[in-house]
Every structure is written in C-alpha cells, then in structure tokens.
C-alpha cells in the first residue's frame, strides 16, 4: 500500500473547507457526502441517487433548457465514466434563489479502472456571471458609445499613439477608423498646447475637461472655427499607473453657434423688448394687457397716469381691484365681447376719473397662442374727451353759424364768371323766395332784381370786376309773390395770374327790416329833437318867468325898503327941527323923548340900508376883477378916521394883498369888518386894528382883520354870522346885526370861507379867504 500522503480525515477536511461545492457519489451514483460549500450553494442538500437528480433544478445556460436528472454531469459520469468540466448551469436553490454554477463531475475509478464513485464539483459563478453580464453590458454600452455619432472617442496609449478610435472620430476627419491604428495623435494634429494638456493628464492621472474649445481643421479651413467639449480621461491599470488616455470630444460648434445666436437673439429680444417698452410708455394712448382671469399683466405709463395709479397697484391685480365699481361692469362687458368676437373690437367708453369725466375710444384684441386659443386680452385706449368736446363745439358752432345766417338773413353766393354759373346758399334762396337751384346763372339773379335797380347793380358788378374795389351795393328785389325786399350785397373777385376775374364771391343780406328800422329811428329822432326843442323852450320860459319873478321880488323888496325911507326922513327931520327951534320950550323929558325918537329913526334907517345891502348881495352879479385889497382897506380906514376925528386908533395895513372879486361887494366886506373893529375898540385906550394875510397849509391866502377890542365868547363864534344876531344891546354898541351876515354871504358867493376867533377883553380876529388876484 502506498503511504497515504493525505489521510482520509485530512481529505475530508480539505473537502469540507474548499470553497467549491463538492458532492461525493458512491458506485451507484447516490450522493453520500455533500460539503458545506455545496450546501451553501444549493441552500440545502438532498442525498439522492441519479434518478432523483432532477430534484436539483438546473437549466443549461446555453440553451435555457431544463436539465433532466440523467443529464446531470454526475449522472453521466457515473453512467458512462465521462468527465464533464465546467458546464455552465443556472440553478434554482432549494430556497428558491437563482444562481449560476460551473458543474463538473468526475467518475472515481478504482485500481481496476472500474467506476467506484463520482465526485461533483460546483463552483458558484453567480457573481462571476453577473460580472460577466455586467461586463458584457458595459462592453455593449461602450460599443454603443463608441458607435455614437456625436461623441468622438480616441483611445491612445501613454505616448499618444492611437489604439482605437470610433467611427465618429474618424469621420469627423474624413477618414476611416482603421487609418488611425499605430499613428500618433500629435503627428497628425500637432499642437503644443494640447500636447501639454495630454501629458499633464498622463502625469497627474487627473482627468481634464474643457468646454467650447475652438479648433480649426487645417485641412478643412472651410469649416471655420469649430467648438468642442473635451474630456481627457486617464486609463489606469489596477496599480494606478496610467497606461493610456481616452479623448472624447463633443462637437458643440452647432451648440456654440446656437448659443451665440441665442445670446444675440436674447440681446436682440431684450433690446426690442426695451424698445417696445419705451414705445409703449411714451405713447399717449393707454395700453394694457390682461390675462383671462382679468389680472393685469401689463399697463403702460399712460394707462397708469390716466387712472392715477402706481404700477404695483395694477400689475397682478384684477379689474375689480383696480377700478371702482361703476366702471368694472362696463369694462368686463367689453372684455368678454372682445374675447367672444376673437378679433379687434372698438368701444366708446364714458368714465368719470379722478379728474373729471372722460371719453375713451378703446380697442381690444385677444392674443392667441399657436392653436388659436386666446390667452390674454390686449387693449389700447385713446382719450378722445377733447376731440369729442371739439366735435361738439364744432357742431354747435356750425349750428350757430347756420342760425346766425338765418337770423341775420344773410346768405352766401358765388358767381363763376368763366362758366356763368351761380351757386347760392339756402339762405339766399329763402331771401329771394325761390326754390332751390332756380338761380343758376347771373341772369336768373338779375331777373329777380327790381327793374329800376338792375342797371345800377350791373354797373356796380362791372366796376368790381374791372376795378380794384370790392363789391358793396344795395338794391331791391321782387319776390315771386310780389313782395319787395331790399338787399345788400358784398363781394370780392378772385382772379387768375393774369388778373382776369374768375369768380365773384360774397354775401347777400336782406336788410329790408334794417332799412325799416332805420327809417323808424330817423322819424323818432326828428320827433325827439322836436320834443327837446319844445322842452327847452318850456324850460327857457320857466326860467324867464322865474327870473322875472325874482326881479319882481327884488324890486318889491327894494321898493318897500326904499319907501320906508321917506317916513324915516320925516321923523328925523321934524324931530331935529323941533329940537333945534323949540329947545328952550321943551323940558328935559321932552328933549329926552325927542332924542329917543331920533335915535330910533336913525337905527331904523341903518337897518333898512343894511337889509337892502344884504338883499342886493344875494342877487347881484359878481363882476370879478383884480383888486388891491390893501388900498381899499386903507381908504376905508381913512374914512373912518375922518368921520370920527376925535377918536384915537392905529391902523396897520399889510401891503400887496391882491384879490379877485366884485369891487362893490368886497368893498362892503372891508367896510363892515373895519367898521366893526373900529366900533368895538371905541372904548379902548389904545385901539389897534390890523389888516393882514397869512398862508394856509394848502397855499391859499387867508386875510384877517384884527382888533384889540372887547372881543366875545367863542361859544358865539358861529352865531354872530347869522342875520340879526347881536351880542350887545344897542346902547352898548350900535349895530343892526346884519353886517356880518352880509360879509358871510359875500365871501361865500366868492367861494371863500369866513370865521372869527376871539377872547373876551383881548380882541377879535375875523379871517376870510378869497381868490388871489393879480397886481
């Protein structure tokens, strides 16, 4: 016996520890031993003979057929002694799992060569198979990739010799894939930059990517600049050493161009969008766009301005949110009408906005997509408020014009001289009383003119045509009903370049009424004048009568005063005689009585004189002359002194007082004032009387007569100028009380003022103003 190198146990151990599944079969082929690995593979085990081998489910991988029991390699091995090695079989384990195994079976022979048993080896190649399949798939993918049209792939070794290129790569260069075998990349396409990149990839083992790298085909310059996306991948051995490089290129020229087109298109679009926006925002019309849900997608500046809203209040908001209730229904109505019609629709809209009532002409049109379905509504609104207003105004004004023509009875006419046709407005027909179009030429017109006026009219027209003056003529016409009307015609001639008359255009106005009115007015004027004359005469008469009456009164007054004188004279006369002649026969009482009588008579005389003066002053005419008041005053002063030589008294009279006034009357004033001063200083020891003048604030002269006499209480300052007002009795100082009234009247009649200032015991100053006179 051979020395057993390996004991049975050892064999058993080896068998049980081997990673492959082992089945031991006996001579009959029944499985007598199954190692753990086999159990693991099969998910169990069955000790079965060859006839039950079918319990182990398996299929031929190549054909997919089920392996029958007897077809098992083990069965064959036992039966025939055939050895099968590594038959690929797909099994289903006892747990229902599917696996792939390599099934091998060997018969065991004894020394005689008889089959003593068998051994089955199962190798679980499921993983391997899967890997294989994956590999195959990868290969498939790879092949597919390789075959791609766009992706250019070149596989090179470390030194950039082509190992494999795909069709696309070759075709891009116009060559066959076989062409490249053995060739060097940089011999074919020298490029130092690229070479460096390639070398870097080899050196670093890092892939390289580039996008849109430009490339020019040296042999195909007509292709221009092409753009490629690069991918340089290092191919590594398991050790990590880079053994080769795969260059894959994607032609992005088209993309690049497209990209550039797109960029340009985008730029153009942006530009045109900007332009459009600018246009839309500059437009005076309101432009807007709404989606089907009534939300505003766009509203130009004009739109916002019109409704006085901000962009954020409109865009994205619905019609209801933007507009007040009253307007919403109208808008929605128009919107739906526009959408329904599917084409451009026009509406006239009346809205009251924040700044008043407006009228808009609104155009709406739906925006449709490619299928013709509307997706938005666009609108353009033009504010025609002004236009409407102008329209209305125009219509009104036309109406007014027509009316005015009608009311004024004025119509227009045009005579085409060359063709002798006459065109007249309706008003003219009305004036003339003929139906429309009856007046066709000049003769027709002349025909309605009064026979007596025809020649004149014709002459006037002629003069206008050949002269320079426009036509202006009045004539009568006879209406068909016989009524005469007076017409006034103006006209102007339109001439050609040579100066020949072409047209005579003008107006014809019915002035019959006017003329009538004129005649009426003239008549009324005559009447009026007559009446005025009558009235003037009446007034004159009345005036004369009044003047006469006045004179009568004056004469009467004068006579009365005058007649009163006579008895006075007698009283005075006879009482004087009595006193003189009968002095010794009359006792003191008698004399006293007589003296009183005389005194009374004298006073009455003075009173009558003063009254006469006063009344004369009122009626007398003022004959104004230049007077030297100073001279007059001096003379009167002298008279006073002469009349009473025994009296003392100093007069101070300012020289050069010139006034303008009535000589007699002014004299009276001075006589009175000086007389008063003389009178009321009669009791003074040193009487002082002054005549002078002062300048007033307004430049007028104020004259005054001042004395240092007895004076008076200022509370009587006004009273003393009233007639018959005396402040003293006749015993104290004689006087009628009329003097100052006379002075006042005279001064007033000369347009001046007179007033007095005084202090009892100190003196009096009487001021008066008069018009300045000349030397």
């Amino acid at each position, binding site marked *: 016996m051979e020395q057993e190198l390996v004991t049975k146990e050892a064999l058993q151990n080896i068998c049980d520890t081997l990673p492959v599944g082992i089945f031991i079969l006996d001579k009959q082929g029944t499985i007598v031993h199954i190692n753990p690995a086999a159990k693991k593979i099969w998910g169990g085990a069955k000790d079965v003979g060859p006839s039950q081998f079918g319990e182990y489910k398996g299929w031929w991988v190549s054909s997919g057929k089920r392996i029958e029991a007897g077809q098992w390699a083990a069965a064959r091995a036992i039966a025939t002694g055939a050895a099968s090695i590594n038959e690929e079989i797909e099994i289903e384990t006892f747990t229902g799992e599917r696996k792939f195994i390599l099934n091998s079976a060997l018969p065991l022979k004894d020394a005689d060569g008889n089959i003593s048993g068998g051994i089955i080896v199962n190798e679980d190649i499921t993983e391997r198979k899967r890997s294989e399949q994956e590999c195959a798939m990868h290969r498939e993918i790879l092949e597919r990739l390789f075959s791609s049209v766009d992706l250019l792939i070149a596989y090179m070794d470390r030194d950039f010799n082509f190992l494999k290129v795909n069709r696309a790569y070759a075709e891009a260069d116009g060559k066959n894939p076989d062409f490249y075998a053995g060739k060097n990349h940089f011999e074919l396409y020298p490029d130092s930059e690229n070479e460096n990149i390639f070398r870097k990839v080899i050196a670093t083992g890092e892939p390289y990517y580039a996008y849109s790298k430009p490339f020019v085909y040296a042999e195909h310059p007509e292709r221009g600049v092409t753009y490629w996306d690069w991918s340089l991948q290092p191919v590594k051995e398991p050790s990590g050493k880079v053994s080769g490089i795969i260059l894959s290129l994607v032609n992005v020229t088209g993309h690049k161009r497209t990209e550039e087109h797109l960029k340009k298109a985008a730029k153009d679009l942006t530009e045109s969008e900007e332009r459009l926006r600018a246009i839309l925002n500059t437009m005076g019309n309101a432009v807007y766009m709404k989606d089907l849900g009534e939300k505003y997608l766009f509203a130009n500046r004009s739109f916002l301005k019109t409704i006085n809203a901000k962009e954020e209040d409109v865009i994205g908001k619905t019609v209801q949110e933007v507009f007040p209730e009253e307007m919403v229904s109208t808008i929605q109505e128009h919107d739906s009408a526009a959408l329904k019609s599917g084409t451009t629709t026009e509406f006239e809209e009346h809205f009251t906005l924040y700044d008043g009532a407006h009228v808009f002409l609104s155009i709406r049109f739906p925006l449709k997509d490619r299928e013709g379905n509307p997706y938005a509504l666009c609108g353009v609104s033009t504010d025609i408020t002004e236009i409407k207003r102008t329209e209305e105004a125009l219509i009104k004004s036309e109406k007014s014009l027509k009316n005015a023509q009608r009311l004024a009875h004025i119509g227009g006419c045009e005579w085409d001289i060359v063709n002798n046709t006459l065109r007249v407005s309706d008003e003219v027909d009305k004036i003339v009383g003929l139906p429309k179009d009856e007046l066709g030429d000049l003769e027709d017109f002349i025909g309605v003119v009064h026979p007596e006026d025809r020649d004149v009219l014709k002459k006037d027209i002629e003069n206008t045509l050949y002269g320079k003056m426009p036509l202006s003529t009045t004539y009568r016409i006879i209406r068909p009903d016989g009524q005469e009307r007076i017409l006034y015609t103006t006209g102007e001639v339109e001439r050609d370049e040579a100066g020949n008359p072409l047209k005579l255009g003008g107006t014809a106005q019915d002035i019959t009424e006017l003329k009538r009115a004129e005649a009426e007015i003239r008549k009324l004027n005559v009447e009026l004048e007559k009446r005025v004359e009558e009235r003037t005469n009446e007034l004159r008469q009345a005036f004369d009568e009044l003047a006469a009456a006045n004179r009568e009164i004056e004469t009467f007054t*004068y006579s009365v005063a*005058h*007649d009163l*004188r*006579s008895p*006075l*004279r*007698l009283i*005075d*006369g*006879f*009482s*004087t*005689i009595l006193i003189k002649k009968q002095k010794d026969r009359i006792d003191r009482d008698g004399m006293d009585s007589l003296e009183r009588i005389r005194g009374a*008579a*004298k006073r009455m*005389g003075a009173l009558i004189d003063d009254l*006469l003066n006063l009344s004369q002053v009122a009626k007398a005419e003022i004959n104004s002359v230049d007077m030297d008041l100073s001279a007059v005053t001096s003379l009167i002063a002298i008279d006073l002194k002469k009349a009473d030589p025994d009296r003392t008294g100093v007069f101070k009279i300012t020289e050069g007082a010139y006034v303008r006034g009535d000589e007699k009357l002014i004299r009276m004033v001075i006589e009175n004032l000086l007389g008063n001063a003389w009178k009321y200083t009669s009791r003074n020891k040193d009487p002082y009387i002054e005549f002078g003048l002062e300048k007033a604030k307004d430049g007028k002269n104020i004259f005054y007569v001042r004395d240092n006499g007895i004076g008076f209480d200022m509370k009587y300052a006004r009273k003393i100028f009233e007639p018959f007002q005396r402040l003293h009795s006749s015993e104290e100082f004689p006087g009628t009380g009329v003097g100052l009234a006379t002075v006042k009247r005279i001064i007033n009649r000369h347009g001046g003022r007179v007033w007095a200032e005084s202090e009892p015991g100190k003196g009096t100053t009487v001021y008066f103003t008069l018009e300045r006179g000349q030397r």
Partner: protein
Amino acid sequence: MKKTIFLVEDSPDAVELTKRAMSCGKETEVVAVADGERALDYLFSTGGFSRKNPNERPDLVLLDIRLPKISGLEVLEKIRSDERTRLIPVVMLTNSKLRSDIRRSYSLGANSYIVKSVKYERFIEVLGKVCEYWLFINES
C-alpha cells in the same frame, strides 16, 4: 331978483321938510306941486295954472321920481323935449338909489341926481349946496 325953485314932491310933509331945510331963504321962492300933471301945468301954463305967465320959468327944478299920475321921469322927458323948458336945470331929488333910475334920469337929460338922506342935518347941508350951486354958481 328972486329965484324960483320949483319943487315937485308928492308928500306934503316932505315938502315942508324941504322948505325948512332950505337955507337960501330970502333970495329964493319955493313953488311946490304934488304930482306930475300939475308940474306940467305949471311949467306950460296949462290946466290949473293957465293964468300963470308962460314966460315965467323957474330957475331950478327939484324933481322927485315917484309921483302920482305922471312920473317924474316923464315930466323930465317933457321938460327936455319942449323948447320953452329945455334948458332949465333939473335936479332929481329922490329917495331912489336904483341905478336904473339914475341912468334913466341922466339919459333923459337931468343935470344932477341927489338922493335924499335920512339924516336931517345932512339933508340941510346937501340942499344948501345944491341951491347954492345951481342958483348962484352955475350960469344957466
């Protein structure tokens, strides 16, 4: 020879006063009539004076204006229009200050116009002057 003053004055009191006021006493004689008609009768020796010597003319006429029947101005007119009496000095002696009377008198030919003053003493004075002048100073 005595001078004759012919006084035409309607108020007898006034006549009396005038006579008394006249200071040319002895040499003058005052004849007075109370109205214009009688004045003319006297001057022309008509009517009640038909027996008067027509050649006798007064040396001075003192004539008032306000006279009954015929006014003093009319008398004046008559005096001046008749040859016989035309040259006799006539002095208007009147109360009237009316400018119209004054003017009228002069234009009718009066030689002088005196307004009778109310004051008697003044009257005496004036009258004396008038008489003296017209009777003794003035050559008629």
